[in-house]
Structure formats: C-alpha cells, structure tokens
C-alpha cells in the first residue's frame, strides 16, 4: 500500500480502459468537502459493478485515501497520472455477505418505573475487516447493542446475523473484551489466555503455543505469564483480556469500553497497540466507547448514538492514514467535528425530564 505505483493496474481491473465508466466526476480544486467524500458519496449511489471515473488533482486522495478506501471494501480500482492530474477508476462491488448485520433491532427493558426503550430500530451492517466504533453518551444503549451482538442479551424486536447465521446465544466467533475485572482470579495469566482454548479441547501443547503467541502480540512481558491477575496493573490486565479474546480466533472482536478505566498514558499506548494488532490480524472489531477522540483514533467508521431512546444519529467514515496518533491534525479535526455534532447529546441530561420520557414513551 505504501509503495503503491500509481500507474500500475490493480488486479481485477485489467483492461478497465475498455469499459466505459458509468459516471464521471471532475473534482479538481475540491477541498471542502474533501474529494474522497465526494467520491464516496458518488459511489454509494452507483449500482453493483458500475464504474466511477474521478478526475482529481489532490495528490493524497489519489495516492492514498482512495486506494485505501477501495482496498478496505474490496473494490477494484486503477489510478493514472497525467501532468499532476489523476484519473481514478473505481468499480463498485456489493459485498455478498457482511460479517455482522443488525436488522431493525429494538430493546425494551422493564423496570420498576415501567418500560424503557434502550434501543429503537437499529440497523447496522459491518463488513469483514472493518473497525467500527459505537460512540455515544452513557445510557444510549451502545453497550446493550454490543451485548446483543455477543448473544449475551436478546433483542426485543429485530434480528442480528453473524456470518449469515442468526445470533441466538453467545458463541466463540464473537468474543467480548469487557471494561475491567473479567479475568479469572483463580487462574494465572497464561491459564486465563488458555481458558477458551481448553473449552474447545485444544491439546495442551498447541494451547500453550497459541497463548504465548497472543501474549506476545499484545506485548505482555514474559515474566508475568505465571502471575496471578491481582498482581498485574490495569493496563496489563486489559492486554491479557485482549490476548484471551484473540486466542479464540473470533471472527468479530467485541470491545466494551476496554480502556475506559485506564489512566491516560496507558490508554494511549494501548490504543496505539490495538491499531497495530488490528492491522496485523485484520480482525473485524466493534468497539464501544464514549470518548470521541478514541473513536476517531481507532475507527474506520464511527456510529454515533443518541439516547432516550437509543438511536443511530449519524455515521462517519474516517479515511485517516494509520497508524493514527492523537496529535495528527486529521484526528484532531474529526474529533472536533464529531464533538460539535454531539454537543447536547453528551451533556448531562436533565434527569427528571429524561426519566419521564423514558417511562411514558
């Protein structure tokens, strides 16, 4: 990706010149909206297998953003340069089977004060290899949605599909990393990582090898492998929790505010390392957070929730180069935009009126 030769034909688009593009857009001079956003919005309106030709003079878009965008979605593409102007050809391919599909899902809790709608008619599609952040104020139902995807909780209405199978119960294809305190204190670090593998009767030798591999991936020092959980710091605990989940080789990793209880420095390190882990393993990750910056730092897509009842408010697609760092201007700007957008949502609610709407809805 980094050494992409812009004039080389990408596989799958051989002889694209012979096809006529279905749509041609000229986005020379476009800065705001960002050229990539224009491309993305145009592609969204194309039908399956249709081809877009974009004429563009914005080098990062042509060389980096657009190829990354296509790569992630598996769209064949081709970029040709002529005198500082790029011709970008992109063919839209509809994915046949998304990793996760949330269809018309609602969740109603019965409480002493009546029925509370935690989630109202959520629709969400998550593709293979995507890093999706669910962002919203506390009480917006984002964790509830994660639990339902995990199968720990059942939707009141609607359906959740994982790899084309209806989700009815928890399964090791969808492992959750919790906020804290989910490691087993009666086991050592390495036994914790081996726990799930033992359940599916993997032989001790392979189990140990896998556990060691994943502990290495999450960067836990070897001297802690035989420690007990209470001997670890908060950051190390979450590393082990991530290793334990990854060791199951789930097709989706579900993360429920895994860094929320950590101090700032540890959190930043782990955010950075999670990006590396994701790049290396190409796992599909659904990450719940209430921290805008964290969502921008990690997500390809950030789904913003509102509360009372929990609904999807907006969805942001972020095409920021990885590894992202907090000090990147793009991260900063996107954080600011989303934060501005969320103003009012994140503010502490007027508790009484909220309770009323929740109860009598």
């Amino acid at each position, binding site marked *: 990706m980094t050494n992409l030769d812009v004039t080389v034909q990408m596989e799958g688009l051989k002889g694209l010149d012979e096809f006529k593009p279905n749509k041609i857009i000229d986005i020379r001079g476009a800065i705001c909206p960002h050229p990539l956003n224009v491309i993305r919005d145009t592609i969204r309106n194309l039908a399956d297998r249709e081809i877009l030709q974009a004429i563009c003079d914005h080098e990062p878009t042509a060389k980096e953003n657009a190829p990354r965008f296509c790569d992630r979605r598996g769209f064949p593409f081709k970029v040709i340069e002529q005198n500082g102007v790029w011709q970008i050809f992109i063919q839209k391919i509809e994915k046949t089977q998304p990793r996760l599909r949330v269809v018309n899902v609602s969740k109603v809790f019965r409480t002493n004060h009546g029925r509370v709608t935690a989630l109202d008619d959520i629709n969400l599609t998550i593709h293979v290899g995507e890093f999706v952040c669910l962002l919203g104020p506390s009480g917006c139902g984002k964790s509830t949605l994660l639990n339902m995807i*995990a*199968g*720990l909780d059942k939707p009141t209405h609607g359906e959740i599909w994982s790899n084309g199978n209806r989700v009815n*119960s*928890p*399964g*090791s294809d*969808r*492992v*959750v990393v*919790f906020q804290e*305190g*989910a*490691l*087993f*204190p*009666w*086991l050592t670090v390495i036994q914790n990582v081996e*726990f*799930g593998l*033992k*359940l*599916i009767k993997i032989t001790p030798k392979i189990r140990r090898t896998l556990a060691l591999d994943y502990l290495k991936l999450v960067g836990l020092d070897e001297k802690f492998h035989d420690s*007990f*959980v*209470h*001997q670890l710091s908060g950051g190390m605990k979450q590393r082990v929790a991530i290793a*334990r*989940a990854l060791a*199951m080789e789930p097709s989706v990793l*579900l993360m429920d505010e895994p860094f929320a209880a950590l101090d700032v420095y540890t959190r930043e390190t782990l955010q950075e390392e999670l990006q590396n882990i994701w790049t290396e393993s190409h796992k599909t990750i659904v990450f719940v957070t209430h921290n805008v910056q964290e969502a921008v730092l990690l997500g390809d897509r950030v789904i913003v929730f509102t509360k009372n009842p929990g609904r999807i408010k907006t969805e942001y697609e972020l095409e920021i180069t990885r590894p992202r760092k907090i000090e990147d201007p793009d991260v900063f700007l996107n954080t600011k935009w989303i934060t501005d957008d969320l103003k009012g949502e994140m503010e502490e609610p007027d508790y009484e009126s909220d309770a009323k709407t929740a109860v009598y809805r």
Partner: protein
Amino acid sequence: MSKRLIKLILFYLILIGLWQGLASLKLWPEYIFPSPFGVLKTLVTGFEDKTFIIGILISLKRLIVGYGFSIVVGLGLGLLIGRIKTLDETIGSLVLGFQALPSICWLPLALLWFGLSESAMIAIVILGSLFSIIIGADTGVKNIPPIYIRAARTMGARGLQLYTKVIIPAALPSIISGFKQGWSFAWRSLMAAELLYVGLGLGHLLMMGRELNDMNQVVAVMIVIIVIGIVIDRLFFAKMENKVRERWGLV
C-alpha cells in the same frame, strides 16, 4: 526461631508451671484437680495400651464418613440452590431453618430411627455439617461477579463446563469456608453425641474418665481432642484457605 514462637513457648511454659504449682499445693483432691504430670502419664499409658488410638480412629472414621457424605451432597445442593431461583426459594429457606438448630438436637430422632448404632452417630455428623456446607456453596455462587460468567459464555462455555470451569472455582473461597465451618460443626456434634451415648469414640473415653472419677483421663482426652482439631485445621483448611487467598490477592 522467630520472636513469635519464643513468646508462644514461654506463655505455655508459664501456664503449665502455674498449673503444676497449683496442683502441688494440693488444695483439691487429685480426682477434682489433676496435675500436668498425671495428665501426661495418662496420655502415655493411653497411647501405649492403644485405648486412645482406638478412640481416635473410631471417632475419625465416623467423621470422615459423615463429613464426606456432607461434602458431596452439600456441595451439589449448594451449587444448585445458588443458581436456580426456585430451589433457592424452597430448599434454601429450609436449609437456613435447619442451620439454626444445633445438630445434637437431632440425636433423639436419630436414635429412634437408627437405634443405638453407628448410623445414628454418622447421621448426627451429617446433620451437623451439611447445612454449613450448603450455605457456603450457595453464598459463594450468589456472590460470583456476573462478569465472570458472561466472559466465560462469550468464550463458548455452557452447561456443565460453566459449573466446573467457572462457577466452582469462582465460588471456591466461600465453599472452603463452608467446608471449614462444616468440619468444626461436625467435630462438635460428634463429641456431643459420643458423650451422650456409649460407642468407644473419644467422647466415650471422656465420659469413662468422669465415671471412674479419673480427672487425668478427662483432661488427657480433652487435650487429644484439641490437638486433633488444631492439626486438621492447620494441615488442611488453613492451607487451602491460604492458597486461595494468595491466588485471589486477598492476603
């Protein structure tokens, strides 16, 4: 030698010295106030002619059979009560009620049902320890942080696996304290039962000492009972407890 140990030894030496001193004054006849020396002599002869050894073995056999039964049944029942609400609301309340009844109160019933037999003794031991063990397991299960079970379920644990791999280990600290309490209740009820009814155990030796006006034997048997209690607690329960505490970081 640690300072603590020196203090301990000094304390007991002084205590025994005072006791011997008091006995040497001969304020009371020996059949009312024994001397340490007399007690030691009785202990030696008791072990030499094997009466004490037989007494210990008989008492321990009753304990092991009864307590073993209590562990199996109590653990199973406690785990189920902790997990299943209906059982908790029905059997759970019954267990709490029985726990309030000193187990020696079962003796009349046990004698009527089982007669003057070994079974009556064992029944008393079971009834003494069962309820503590059930309550220990039940409390342990109820206090498991739900997140352990959720985490295990998302890794694919279900059914029996959930019990063996998560619920039992997670409830272990409380299960062990239930075992420990059950053991001390079993020990106490057995001694009470043996005192009341002839049957060759340690309690019977104690009673025999009273009937023969042999206070040396009474005190010697008391010492044996104390030592056995302490040894089992130290060797067994304290070790288990320490291990669990260390793992969980409760030290």
